């Protein structure tokens, strides 16, 4: 055809051919091609129709049988969770194999399923209601088994094996459970593993019904790292759902990665023991309500947590065995209260008034604001009256002119009342003490890599204004909402509204120890692959990721920090120092401060009693600090009485040294 001659206009995307606008008609050629299209369509449908006929009508029976005997079953094989190791590679959380009993809902008999489950519940001593609820939850997913009980004992397994024809759809499988070789060591940090809840299933992605997931502590915050990837196995089963072929792995699982902590298991053990010792001392001093405490040990150079202890504690194995009696203190609020909340991680989520242990914060802030000359003396008296209110010193007989180091060493309250008053008297609307406290890390979570961490409270004018309103405080709101001189005075010695966690205090003392750098505390040092029990013994683990959270330089006056360090050293070494009796004879130079915070507690039946939270925070060796320790004993009496000897115990383990003579005294 001569169409070659048609010019294609250059430079145009869609050149238009005028002839196309000629009246359009159905040419025979087009009709023919439409016919071909129609024929093609008919052929396609004809072919599909006859194929369906052949499949469904002619050989339908055969396929029906194939469907009924569908013997291929894909089962998920859970990956072993990665271990959690301490800084020296000791396994804190490993895996142990256990025997679990599972029910395949699809294979339960149509009649008599209820009776079978009731028998099973009786044998395994699991409430029948729990099983039926579980099965109901899995209704949309009948080929994923329901785990009725992990950790089933040998005689029960043997019984099930002997009577397996009476239990169609019930299967005994091997499973991995968490093993805790160190018992209750660092339980609140490690967390535990449990079956995923409905709420978690909705909130997370990539998890399925029946999956195990970390339910707290590191197991939760590092779940994605630890869990690995499940594999797929193929299994042939008979019509009762019983396996008739060995399990054939299809997709191998990927074991979870290990995480290595900064925590030293030995020091952690010592810290936990130290709290118990502190409590025993406190009880010996007739502080009967001393039942709990916390210790934080930090490396002041990089914020690596060496020990993070909270007492009372528990053995996480109870989450595996799931005995009701053992779980009650963790899950039942009223039992938990009786047992002083063992699940609470007091080191990061316990809020306390720091008392005198806060005085270095006040001193540092005052020097940074140039309202305190450290070597000018102020009069330390037994009490001080400010704006008509009389504020007492812990030692009513004090009467001496003091420099700042001496005031810290002897923990003179009246000295710091005067500093607090100077803050209050500053002109303008700034609140420098609060601002400095916040920049030292108070009033906000420190960013620790395991939760749940609380931020505490640094009281400010705005906070008072917001908190005390007509609704919350109908009697005195008009007075309470104002910031008064007494508030500044009390804040200066860490009393009244101020609330801190032991970790925040340790972080601040680390700042004093390292010369003004604010560290980010962390417990996880690295994510590792292999090594340990999963890798070969000869090859070490491969480090996939290392965590070194930032250290923030605050550019503080080095002289100011030096003065405070002097005061802290005097506190542990001069004759009148508040914890000199405890640390004075320790071979390594320790510097630190006691604290005693008054607190009203409800001792039951609405009876209120005034008790003291016992604090000690400090670091050593004095010249090049390697360890900061902060100890709290709830209701333990004076800081020098209970918390200081606790902290000493941690230093003794860390420096492998013994203190010669230890004399506690009732000193704030």
């Amino acid at each position, binding site marked *: *055809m001569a169409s070659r001659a048609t010019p294609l206009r250059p430079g145009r995307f869609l050149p238009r051919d005028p002839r196309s606008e000629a009246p359009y008609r159905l040419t025979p050629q087009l009709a023919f*091609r439409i016919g071909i299209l129609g024929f093609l369509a008919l052929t396609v449908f004809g072919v599909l129709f006859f194929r369906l006929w052949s499949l469904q009508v002619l050989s339908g029976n055969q396929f029906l049988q194939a469907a009924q005997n569908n013997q291929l079953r894909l089962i998920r094989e859970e990956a072993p969770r990665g271990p959690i190791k301490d800084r020296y590679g000791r396994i804190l959380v490993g895996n142990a194999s256990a025997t679990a009993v599972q029910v395949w809902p699809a294979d339960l008999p149509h009649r008599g399923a209820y009776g079978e489950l009731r028998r099973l519940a009786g044998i395994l001593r699991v409430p029948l209601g729990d099983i039926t609820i579980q099965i109901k939850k899995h209704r949309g997913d009948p080929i994923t088994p329901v785990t009725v009980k992990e950790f089933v004992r040998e005689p029960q397994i043997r019984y099930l094996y002997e009577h397996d024809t009476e239990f169609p759809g019930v299967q005994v499988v091997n499973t991995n459970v968490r093993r805790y070789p160190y018992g209750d060591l660092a339980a609140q940090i490690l967390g535990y593993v449990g079956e995923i809840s409905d709420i978690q299933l909705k909130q997370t992605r990539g998890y399925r019904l029946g999956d195990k997931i970390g339910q707290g502590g590191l197991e939760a915050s590092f779940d994605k790292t630890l869990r690995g990837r499940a594999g797929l196995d193929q299994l042939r089963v008979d019509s009762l759902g019983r396996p008739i072929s060995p399990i054939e792995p299809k997709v191998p699982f990927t074991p979870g990665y290990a995480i290595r902590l900064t925590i030293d298991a030995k020091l952690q053990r010592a810290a936990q023991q130290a709290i118990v010792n502190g409590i025993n001392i406190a009880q010996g001093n007739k502080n009967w309500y001393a039942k709990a405490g916390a210790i934080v040990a930090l490396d002041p150079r990089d914020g690596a947590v060496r020990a993070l202890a909270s007492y009372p504690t528990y053995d996480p194995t109870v989450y595996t065995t799931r005995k009701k009696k053992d779980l009650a203190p963790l899950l039942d609020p009223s039992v938990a209260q009786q047992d002083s909340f063992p699940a609470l991680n007091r080191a990061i989520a316990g809020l306390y008034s720091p008392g005198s242990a806060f005085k270095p914060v006040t001193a540092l802030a005052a020097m940074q604001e140039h309202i305190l000359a450290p070597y000018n003396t102020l009069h330390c008296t037994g009490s001080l009256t400010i704006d008509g209110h009389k504020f007492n010193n812990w030692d009513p007989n004090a009467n001496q002119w003091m420099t700042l180091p001496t005031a810290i060493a002897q923990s003179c309250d009246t000295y710091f009342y005067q500093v607090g008053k100077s803050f209050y008297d500053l002109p303008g609307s700034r609140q420098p003490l609060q601002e400095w406290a916040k920049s030292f890390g108070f009033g906000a979570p420190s960013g620790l890599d395991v939760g749940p961490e609380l931020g505490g409270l640094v009281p400010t004018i705005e906070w008072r204004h917001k908190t005390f309103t007509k609704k919350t405080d109908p009697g005195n709101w008009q007075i309470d909402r104002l910031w008064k001189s007494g508030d500044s005075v009390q804040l200066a010695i860490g009393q009244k509204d101020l609330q801190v966690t032991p970790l925040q205090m340790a972080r601040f003392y680390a700042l004093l120890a390292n010369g003004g750098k604010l560290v980010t505390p962390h417990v996880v040092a690295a994510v590792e692959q292999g090594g340990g029990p999963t890798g070969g013994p000869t090859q070490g683990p491969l480090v996939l990721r290392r965590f070194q959270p930032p250290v923030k330089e605050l550019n503080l006056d080095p002289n100011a920090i030096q003065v405070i360090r002097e005061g802290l050293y005097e506190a542990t070494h001069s004759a009148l120092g508040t914890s000199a009796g405890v640390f004075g004879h320790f071979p390594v130079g320790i510097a630190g401060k006691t604290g005693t915070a008054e607190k009203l507690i409800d001792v039951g039946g609405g009876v209120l009693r005034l008790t003291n939270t016992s604090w000690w925070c400090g670091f050593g060796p004095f010249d090049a600090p390697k360890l900061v320790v902060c100890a709290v004993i709830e209701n333990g009496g004076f800081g020098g009485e209970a918390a200081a000897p606790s902290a000493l115990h941690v230093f003794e383990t860390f420096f492998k040294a013994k203190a010669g003579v230890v004399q506690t005294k009732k000193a704030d």
Partner: protein
Amino acid sequence: MVDYAASRRARVRPRARVRESSYVRNLDWALLLAVGGIVAYGIWVVSGITKDDVPGNPNYYVVRQAIFAAVGVAGLIGMSLLDPGFWRRHARVVYGGMILMLVVTPLLGKTVRNTRRWIDIGPFRFQPSEFGKLLLVLFLAAFLAERGKAIYDRRTTLIAIGLAVIPILLVFLQPDFGTAIVYAAILGATLFIAGTRWSQVSALLVLGAFAATFVLWLGPSIGVNVLKPYQRERITGFTNPSRDPSGSTYNITQATIAVGAGQVSGRGPNGATQTNYNYLPEHATDFAFASLSEQRGFVGATILLLLYLLVIWRAIKVVTLARDAFAAIAAGGIAFMLLIQIFINVGMTIGMAPITGIPLPFVSVGGSSMVANLLAIGVLQSICVRRR
């Protein structure tokens, strides 16, 4: 564009005003009823298939599917009111928009099962390649109609192929092999209806056959892998399903069992073990037809096929009514687009076509496919209303 004096005159007749009464009278009611029937039937079937898919919400997919159908019907009405000449005049915009959508998809898209086909818009997922099918038909029809008699020119065919290869490659790289095949089929169908010479059509067929052979068998044997191994396995697997029943041909084995087990009257939504116990993967989307056959049997499957046949027949009828070349080519392209999708999807579940993930028109769960196909029906209606 430049208007020719001749064209002004020629426009008088096809542009005859469409009065409302004649609009309603000229609609292809058989086509509308058939499509409506398939949509309604599809929603009913989906309710049985997906009742256990979202724990605690048996109606999750049905509700979504009904919403999509409603959106699609609105779009269908809109399309039918629009003069098909609109698409012809804005062919360049159509092409540019299609390319833009397909380029943007991998950039903004979410990776789902190793492919990037979807863009998340609010709670919904938008799959541009589904709409791209219709846009490709409209663009190619406009391009070929503008060429008029130059259609016999080899260069026209080559340019058409060149322009179509870009979207085909973009879709192929997502990777979405099935949809790329549909795009290629659209190219072939529009060329065919437009009147490309038989010699060129047969050359194209031979070339296509050779390309397929190369991609599937020859290439891999000399180490050139165009397809990912899993794709090749699934495509070649249908020729020999019993080779590896648990691996690459697991899907086809299970799908065939599901279809066959449905027998004449089906096993019902509760007895369909293949669907309910997830032996059959993707039973709401790619393997919806297998699920339907298992639950509703030969009777149910045949009803659907007959409705499809009615739709295709009416679509081909529209080709003969078209007022101009553009409308005829567009109608033919849409008819073939639907036909190839039906064939590949139904065929793959009964072992007659390779396993490629393309949805069953108007039935598979998925908003983009539903809306795009209803829009295509809308274009057919608009062509039918403004008939010769």
